[in-house]
């Protein structure tokens, strides 16, 4: 994620408005005034004065405190679809005297990406002392792969009495690349063996401990006597030892067979039965199958890279081809490519026309992941192993499930189900509101304040640096809200 500045930014827009409670409060104040004047009730005069004082205090504390608010967003290191990512904020209270209370930070999502998270990420800062920086985190779960554009943050507070809500908008544009959802594959799911021991490379490229021959050198006291090359040593006057090399990694191509443009292909492949049949005999949409294929490809890349393979990526329909390489950094690069795939735009015709399959040599291994229902129909080398995203469940490890982001949405509530639910809520005894959550004592998205001096950044890693406070263990799962 890119961040334009490291300095907490001032707001770009400010708004102040009366809440419903504030309007009611104003009407009540007016009523008190009328009642006091009408009845000449001295205690009502007191009450009217106190109500006016409350309005004054609300305006002063909510406005003055927020004027000094400065905000900075920190980039999380990674994001995967369906997995929570922590968005961290640095809140600086530039006021000299006024502390900040009850500040709610809400990510402003642009409309185009509004559907990628069920609700905006919200963080809550209970207290920010004057001339100090505080840190607050908020978990957010992107529900779709791709680029998530964050436009800014809205900070609001209605402290102390909730009569007025003062909000500020901070323009902090940033882009978060959401990688494909994580899948836990079966252990036996690996690349087919390379052809006849070649592994795709000629010879080892570094010293290692494999039987592969790397070179010879003079014997050094301490070398393993078993490595002594006796015949070579006999030809000369000195002992020669044999050096073993690191076997070159096997090259595996991951070929992703997905439509180039989902908008057109969705219309062509919208027939029932085109995909995996569910219990209700409806089919998976092409979009969902495509995303599953991408996730499967990403999982394969991670698995193969972890096992030491050189992995390359090819998406022929989009003209994408990435040279095989080994290492975690390369795997991340390939995942970024998969995460950045935008299937809503028609790809470049020239790129589509490029024949990438010719880069796959006969000594390379290949795994083809297709979004189609029949993996056999996927284009690619004949020796490649073919996997279909439709059969995703069978490819997962025992006990693993398909992530929710790759599952079709639940069917809408039928009228009969709705009636049953309403009747159940109306006549049955229900748990009391949010008491269950309150009793669990869960606190998430709550800020901590540092004890650092004015202007200094607190350490970004590790437990809270405020002395005298015991770090709390990771929070447990919050119980679900009771239905209203």
């Amino acid at each position, binding site marked *: 994620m890119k961040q334009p500045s490291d300095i907490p930014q001032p707001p770009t827009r400010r708004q102040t408005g009366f809440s419903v409670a504030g309007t009611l409060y104003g009407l009540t104040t007016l009523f008190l005034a009328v009642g006091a004047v009408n009845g000449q009730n001295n205690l009502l005069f007191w009450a009217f004065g*106190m109500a006016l004082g409350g309005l004054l205090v609300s305006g002063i504390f909510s406005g003055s405190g927020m004027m000094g608010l400065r905000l900075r967003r920190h980039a999380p290191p990674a994001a995967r679809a369906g997995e*929570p*990512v922590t968005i961290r904020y640095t809140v600086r209270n530039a006021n000299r005297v006024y502390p900040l209370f009850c500040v709610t930070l809400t990510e402003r999502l642009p409309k185009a990406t509004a559907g990628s998270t069920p609700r905006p990420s919200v963080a*809550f800062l209970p*207290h920010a002392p004057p001339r100090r920086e505080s840190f607050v*985190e908020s978990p957010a*779960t992107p529900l779709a792969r791709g680029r998530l554009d964050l436009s800014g943050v809205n900070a609001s507070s209605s402290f102390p009495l909730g009569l007025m809500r003062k909000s500020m908008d901070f323009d902090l544009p940033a882009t978060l690349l959401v990688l494909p959802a994580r899948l836990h594959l079966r252990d036996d799911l690996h690349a087919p063996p390379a052809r006849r021991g070649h592994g795709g490379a000629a010879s080892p490229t570094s010293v290692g401990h494999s039987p592969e021959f790397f070179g010879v050198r003079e014997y050094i006291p301490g070398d393993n006597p078993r490595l002594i090359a006796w015949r070579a040593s006999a030809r000369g006057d000195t002992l020669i030892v044999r050096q073993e090399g690191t076997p070159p990694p096997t090259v595996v191509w991951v070929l992703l067979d997905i439509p180039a443009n989902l908008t057109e292909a969705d219309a062509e492949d919208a027939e029932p039965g085109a995909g995996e049949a569910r219990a209700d005999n409806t089919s998976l949409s092409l979009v969902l199958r495509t995303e599953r294929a991408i996730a499967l490809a990403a999982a394969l890349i991670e698995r193969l890279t972890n096992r030491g393979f050189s992995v390359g990526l090819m998406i022929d329909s989009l003209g994408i081809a990435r040279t095989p390489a080994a290492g975690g950094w390369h795997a991340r690069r390939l995942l970024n490519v998969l995460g950045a795939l935008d299937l809503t735009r028609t790809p470049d015709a020239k790129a589509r026309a490029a024949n990438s399959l010719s880069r796959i040599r006969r000594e390379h291994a290949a795994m083809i992941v297709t979004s189609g229902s029949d993996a056999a129909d996927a284009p690619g080398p004949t020796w490649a192993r073919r996997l279909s995203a439709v059969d995703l469940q069978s490819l997962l490890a025992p006990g693993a499930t398909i992530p929710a982001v790759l599952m079709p949405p639940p069917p809408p509530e039928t009228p009969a189900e709705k009636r049953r639910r309403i009747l159940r809520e109306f006549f049955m005894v229900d748990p009391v509101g949010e008491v269950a959550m309150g009793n669990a004592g869960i606190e998430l998205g709550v800020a901590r304040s540092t004890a650092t001096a004015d202007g200094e950044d607190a350490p970004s890693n590790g437990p809270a640096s405020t002395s005298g406070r015991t770090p709390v263990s990771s929070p447990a799962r919050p119980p679900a809200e009771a239905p209203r």
Partner: protein
Amino acid sequence: MNDDIRFRWLVFTAAMLAIFTYAVADESWIFGGLALALAVIGWNVTERRGGRAVPRALIATAIVLAILWAIASGLREGLNVAHFCQFTIAVLVIKCYDRRTSADLGQFVMLCLFLSIGALLTSNSLWMALALIPTLLYSVAAAVAYQFHLGRIAARRSAASSPPQPVLPTRTPTPTLPTAPCIRGLSRTLALGWLLVVAVSLAVFILFPRNVGADSFGRWGNAAVGMQTGFNDEVQLGEPGLISTSSAPVLDLTVRSTDGRILGAPEETYYLRGAVLDSYRNGRWTASDSSRQRIHDLSAGLDFGFTTGRAGAGRGQNTLIELDVMIRNARTEGYHLFTVWRPRSIEFESRAVIRYGDDNGIVTRDGQSGRVRYTVVCEPVEAAVAIPEGRLRTPVSHDSPPIAALAGEILRGAGLDPDPATRPIEDDAAAAAAIERYFDTGFEYTLDISSPSDNRDPIEWFLLEEKRGHCEYYASAMVALCRTVGINSRVVTGFVATEFNDATRHYVVRESNAHAWVEVEVVPPRPVDRPAAVGESPADLFHPGTSQWQTRDPTPSGEFRRIHRPEPTLASQVRNIFEAVNYAWITSIVAFDDTTRTNLVSAMRIDTTALDHWVEDAGRRVRHGGSSLVARALTNALVAAASVLFLGLALTLGMPALKGIWRSLLARLARVRGGARSARANQLAGASFYTRLLHALARKGHAKPAWQPPLAHARELCSETLAPPACRVAEAFYRVRFGHAELSPADHAAIKADLAALD
């Protein structure tokens, strides 16, 4: 206990305190206790772990029943504060059994504040004020804590939408409890906020003018300071039962002389007349319709007083006293005010419609319920008034031969003629005194009395058989006896002021001080101010043609003292201390009037004349403007809103054009400045020969010091070949640099030649 639980208990405590405060204000202990008990049970059942709410159907039914009850009560008794508060309490109790979300908890806080306002409208007593203080503190604390709660809930919901997987190894743990700096900062902020609120409320309380706009919007807003009196303007004899002996104060009396000196003493008693009952039938005393009543409408204008027309009546000068009466809780319609016989003038502090009886001096009031304060100027000993010529006595009778016989016996025993036809009118006073003394022996005072047998006249039964009763029986009996012997008399009910508080120098009149006594009409036995003339009868020694109402109390004095002036005990002394505090609360805060305000403001040297005039003018306009004023105000508001809207639209639509115009103006200005600058820059660029001059001199070993002007340096050059050209070039540079001159091509050529000579 985490923040959520602590917040919920804070809300519950605020709600319970609000219910308790209203119960104190309304003195509805049973209702308040029941509501508290139900609320505590409901809250505890639903708040514990695994607690469950009552099914929604029952909750909805309870709410509907509460609404129906409120509507029915409103239709039956009219809308009043009590109904609203009771409905609010019912809703609070029902919500204690319902499931509660954040919105419900916010509603709790709001209902607490409404209930507090209801308590203020119900009573202004000291107990209510003491109960209101913690209620307000907890309610405001709950409102503040609610903001924190909302933020936590919003963050929790956002987190709940995310799977609870441990996300990143670098994720820092977050605390679940507010930190100490947060609490300290919050406490300081809230303390500062409270100070500001108290300061503003104090300023409003002191500076806001009083007596402006009262009753402009109907009769509401005033509150009581104590319980309503059980005073009844009728006396029904013959019913069994126990008369109330409640010691709850009902009114406060301060007696002053006309020069402002406070009168009163523990042994001094004042009879505060409420109702005059002069018609007896079937055991019931009522007020006859013959008394003339004058109506004084004090709802308009600024004069809240009137005179009774008694000023200067009668002969001689009577000492006048001033009574400052504060009734703690008056009714709205037809409420009897209490004065000492006979009132001369009455001054009120608020608007009302007053009815005054000329004959009996009874004052009734129609106005706001609650606390009522007024000042009465009285003549405690009525001056004699003239009676119509030819009428010696007001003809009265009481149809009861046994009572007449008894009266005759009493008078004969006192050496007086029982026959009114033959008895001198001047003996009426003595006769009345004799009848009054008759009850001192042989009679017993009791508050618990049985009823006479069927069809037996209660007065006869009391006089001839029972000889036990309370003040109403004694008064009734004395009036009956007086009337049978032709003495005009009447029963008066009211209160006796006997409890004098030395600390506050005022009388506390309690419910148990309700009393009944007698007034008899007699010729005042005052000597004339001249000796009897020849031929004048002894009767002429009295004021012929005059009569006077005298107050007589037939209740045995010992019993009177026992009932109304008991021996002080420790409890009564403690009670007196509290009464003193309570009275200080009432007089300084509750009864803070315009006079006190003016004095206080003057003492603080604050000029509120402008504010007073403005408020008074606004009140007058509201009173006279009425609905047309409201309509005009609404129209003005609509026009203003439409104007703002139109202006906003115009700005919104026209803003881009305005911006374009502004930008073009700025660009033009920049061009002009840039052009002028570029011309100047060009000019200076043409003086680059000066740099060449400096270089040439430096090459020749005559570098110019930085501190020296170029022409001065050129003139100091010793070389005859260098100095002249250097001077010419320097002068040319001066012309360009400081003279803003344009060099001609010939000048440039000459300069070039000089520079070549230097090189």
